[in-house]
């Protein structure tokens, strides 16, 4: 489409699936009767994401988010909520770990075929690996999710 390799990087970062989720986020709401919640903050840019979930019978019966942020962080949160419904907390943590890995340039192989299928979609987030300052945008919702599952009130991208 474009011979400019720099443009290719941008197209990889802002592929259609990212732009679609960024503009039309799924599960953008508060889960009714949620059993856990957490807020993710990126103090560097002021982006915020609130994750709520309802756990029932050892599974994530519902998960949603609200917040303000860039296309990357909103798309990541939206795709996350799509992937996590009906997963166990352990599977959710495994996906969170895998997303962090692909965003920082590591390759990921998931043994569970169902999770591997989700990872194929989430792989679109790996475009941030060429943009180090944007990695936190993609991982922020997942940090919030892990805190949510532990029911910590706050997650932050700053260590």
């Amino acid at each position: 489409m474009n011979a400019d390799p720099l443009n290719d990087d941008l197209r990889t970062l802002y592929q259609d699936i990212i732009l679609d989720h960024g503009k039309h986020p799924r599960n953008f709401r508060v889960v009714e009767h949620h059993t856990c919640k957490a807020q993710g903050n990126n103090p560097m840019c002021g982006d915020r994401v609130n994750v709520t979930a309802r756990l029932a019978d050892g599974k994530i019966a519902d998960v949603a988010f609200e917040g303000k942020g860039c296309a990357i962080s909103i798309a990541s949160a939206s795709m996350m909520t799509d992937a996590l419904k009906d997963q166990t907390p352990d599977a959710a943590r495994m996906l969170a770990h895998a997303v962090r890995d692909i965003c920082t340039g590591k390759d990921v192989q998931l043994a569970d075929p169902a999770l591997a299928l989700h990872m194929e979609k989430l792989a679109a987030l790996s475009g941030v690996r060429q943009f180090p300052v944007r990695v936190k945008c993609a991982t922020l919702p997942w940090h919030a999710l892990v805190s949510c599952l532990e029911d910590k009130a706050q997650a932050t991208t700053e260590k």
Partner: protein
Amino acid sequence: MNALGKAKVFDVDKIRADFPILARQVHGKPLVYLDSAASAQKPQSVIDAISRTYGHEYANVHRGAYYLSEMATRAYEDAREKVRLFINAASPSEVVFTKGATEAINLVAHSFGRAFIKAGDEIVLSAVEHHSNIVPWQLLREATGCVLKIAPMEADGSFNLESFAAIIGPKTKLVAVAHVSNVLGTILPVREIARLAQAVGAKVLLDGCQGIVHQIVDVQDLGCDFYVFSGHKLYGPTGIGILWARAELLNAMPPYQGGGDMIESVSFAKTTWAPAPAKFEAGTPPIVGAIGLGAAIDYLNSIDRVAATAHEEDLLRHAMSSLAQVPGVRLIGTARRKAAVQSFVMEGAHPHDLATVLDRSGVCVRAGHHCAQPLMELLGVSATTRASFAFYNTRAEVDALIAALRKAQEVLL
């Protein structure tokens, strides 16, 4: 604008040749540096002064009874005199070297604040303040029980003097406001603010980080009591800043930090302080930072600053009219009196995404809350994109910004 009348033709190419970094490329594209409000680039003369000091003239100051230390001390104190002249302070003893504007404000909050501001006293800030002129006063509020009040802002980003006059009174002990807003570019009516504040007996602190870059500052003419700024935004090195305060205030204020170089005599029973400015410069100061700032001031004195400011105003006007023509772009900060800083938002594109795409075109802009989250809340946005201009920028660079924005729309929308 009266400055425009006598402004000569400004040779921006000649100026650009003084700043070596401007010749480099980023991602294979010519660098278009539009983030000078965050930190300005450095002329070769500043880089040389730093290198020469470390290479040939370096020793600690105010200590050694030997030639090199005398030389370094003289260069350090010469830098103080250059700052004094640059801001027309009455005496070099009114010029305190700090590590930056943030430290200068913290110094005033800690020293002046704890000595002279009591529970129930009021400090008035403006709505446009940077976190560095908010948080130190919140810390003081926690320590003393004083009250913070916020002077409102008009929708276009201008300061409302009438509302300000209405919220100050006999309880107001300090008014601390920006000279120029780092987000909106608004030039605050600081002379009028100082006059109104002093009429109710309040002291006035001006955060001059952006002001001194775009305006010729005369602290005596402004009528303020404290003026602070950072060296790195004024084409000097990082790690150096200035607190200017009236002599009688510095004399009355207790030390901020204790250590070497700030004492008259020390015994375990009692220590007495050196007079200002040494009283506020505990420990080995940022010697080379001060000398580098002196070199930056020399550089500014060597160019036609009136013409430079007129050139910056031309860039701002060109940017405002060009940005307004990009579909979906809304300008944030359109006050009548503005310095060369322009924030904006673009429909459907978050500032961080914009900044990432712009960067790939070589265009450096700031995206985010600009350390002014309360102002963002008032504006009803979570972030903006900000282009800020220095006299080394060109109209062609404004055009490059606009072209990059149109490309960003292709990628993001």
